[in-house]
């Protein structure tokens, strides 16, 4: 299992279009990535659930990755978050 934390800097938070791209990115891997904020969580491949978490600027999210390619998946998602959120 791999984990990383990320603080959202995008003014609108995890919103529709980039969230869609995030889902695409996550689907490239076999591992399951889960976004966790407080008591809420959503799989990185579930666009609406992810948006439904209402993640806003300044929120810290924990991303947990489990699966055979978790190293690569974690690195890719962390990079994606930095570039897009």
């Amino acid at each position, binding site marked *: 299992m791999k984990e990383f934390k990320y603080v959202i800097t995008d*003014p609108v*938070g995890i919103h*529709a279009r980039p969230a*869609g791209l995030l889902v695409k990115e996550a689907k490239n891997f076999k591992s399951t990535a889960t976004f966790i904020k407080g008591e809420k969580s959503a799989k990185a491949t*579930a*666009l*609406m659930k992810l*948006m*439904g978490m*209402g993640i806003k600027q300044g929120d810290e999210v924990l991303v947990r990755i489990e699966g055979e390619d978790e190293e690569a998946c974690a690195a890719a998602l962390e990079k994606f978050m930095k570039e897009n959120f």
Partner: protein
Amino acid sequence: MQTFKGTKIVNGIAIGRIKIYKTPDYVISEELVSDIGAEIERFEAARVKVQEQQNALYEKEMKEGRKDTAGIFEAHAMMLDDEDTLIDPCKEIMAEGHTAEYAVRAAFDNAATEFSEMEDEYFRARSADVIDLKNSMLDVLFGNDTESLQGTEPAILVAEDLAPSETVKLDKSLLLGLVTRLGSSNSHTAILARSMNWPTLIQCHDIADDWDGKFAILDGYNSCIYIEPDQKTIDELSAKQAEDKAREEKLKELKGQPSVTKDGRKVKLYANIGGPKDIQAVIENDAEGVGLFRSEFVYLNSKEDPSEEAQFAAYKQVLEGLSPRMVIIRTCDIGADKTIDYMQLDKEDNPALGFRAVRICLTRPDFFKRQLRALLRASAFGNLGIMFPMIISLWEVKKCKEILEECRKELEAEGAKIGKYEIGIMIETPAAALCADELAEEVDFFSLGTNDLTQYTCAIDRQSANLEPFANTHHPAVLRLIRETIEAGHRHNTWVGICGELGADPTLTEEFLKWGVDELSVNPKSILPLRGNVRNADLSKFKTESPKAVDPKKEPKGFFGRLFS
């Protein structure tokens, strides 16, 4: 005549018959079916078709240069791939023997409700996206053609609300104006109405079905609609509408035209903006770049000192959104009349002459460096100009450049990508204007901030009503400083722009051009009128005339000017 109020989106007038636009109220059977596989197939076919429709709308909007509305449809297409929330629940419902229509309504409504209950306004507004998708799915499943809903005659459309895909599909040649009971000024429909310049009224709570077919006037200026207006109202507003049209046509013709005088002198017309929200206005008004991007919004919109990341995101968004246009970002100009709690600035007796702009930045280098690093990183995404405000001395410019250089080296060591950028300063103090020769050697461009330059040159507080009789926006001392700054800049190959209010003053355009100004930066709405001025100007006639505006004997234009004239 009856008058009903609403909230206007666009200042404009629409005159014509009303057409009530109603989304079909589908009757969905609750009967169970036996062929579950067939329903799932129908669902899949509809999903793929709607996804294709959304992608086509995305392409259409991109082609017409509306990136923000295009993004909506791109997101819609992505939502239709969502297994967890949309596809799987639909399939589960169909597996119980329900029809595809029944499943779509249940699952999509459920998802829409979840969004509508969220705290954040942005996410709450997404429930409209899900409803929009549901209606598109039902249209396909019922084999319905939404285009016929608009009728065949030009009309003012009146609706409960319009989903983005409905709005985009409307036949624009038949659309005179738009009135909705619901909607918000941030809704996609409002965004589109603004960019298409449709007279639009939202939140008009009194709309009624019996308006259908009635003659009406939508008056955006007064945020209302007149049903069966009297002749006086018709005459007045028809005249106003004709006036608007004539003005718009004239301005529209100027889009895409070069900003060049009759005798061939070119000038760059840039826009002044306050944040990423103004990107669309820059594009719509055909500005050739941004001459002043006030970075204050990143500081003012934040409860705490904004991080490098937050600033980077905002700068990148503007640079990327406007590329390849040049975007000049002015570094932090906090202080004077703009104070912020987290900056913990001491109260000053004389803030206009106090601790502000680079004076704060050079005193607090860590704070300054966060912004400069964000700017340098953003430079990789467009055509950036970095501009330092409130300069009075050469050493300040050198110090700003030194810190910028330090940031560049740090970033390079970290492996960050940095693009090309130009460095400039604001000329807004008499000290800077008089030292323009020395300063010009250090920078690529000057931008004359005429508001502060006037206030500091004339010792006139802009906010004070008592000083109105003494104020002269065309004071010869200010105009002389402007002219000399332009000349000094050019002696050192430094280009010179004007970004204060005087830049948009039509009575000075010819004068500025004659003095050699390279760029005028004004609010987006003034771009096209100013281009009209430029294109009507003819500088060749000045060869024999002496410059009139710098005549020191000229009377002030304020109170005394009127008194003596």
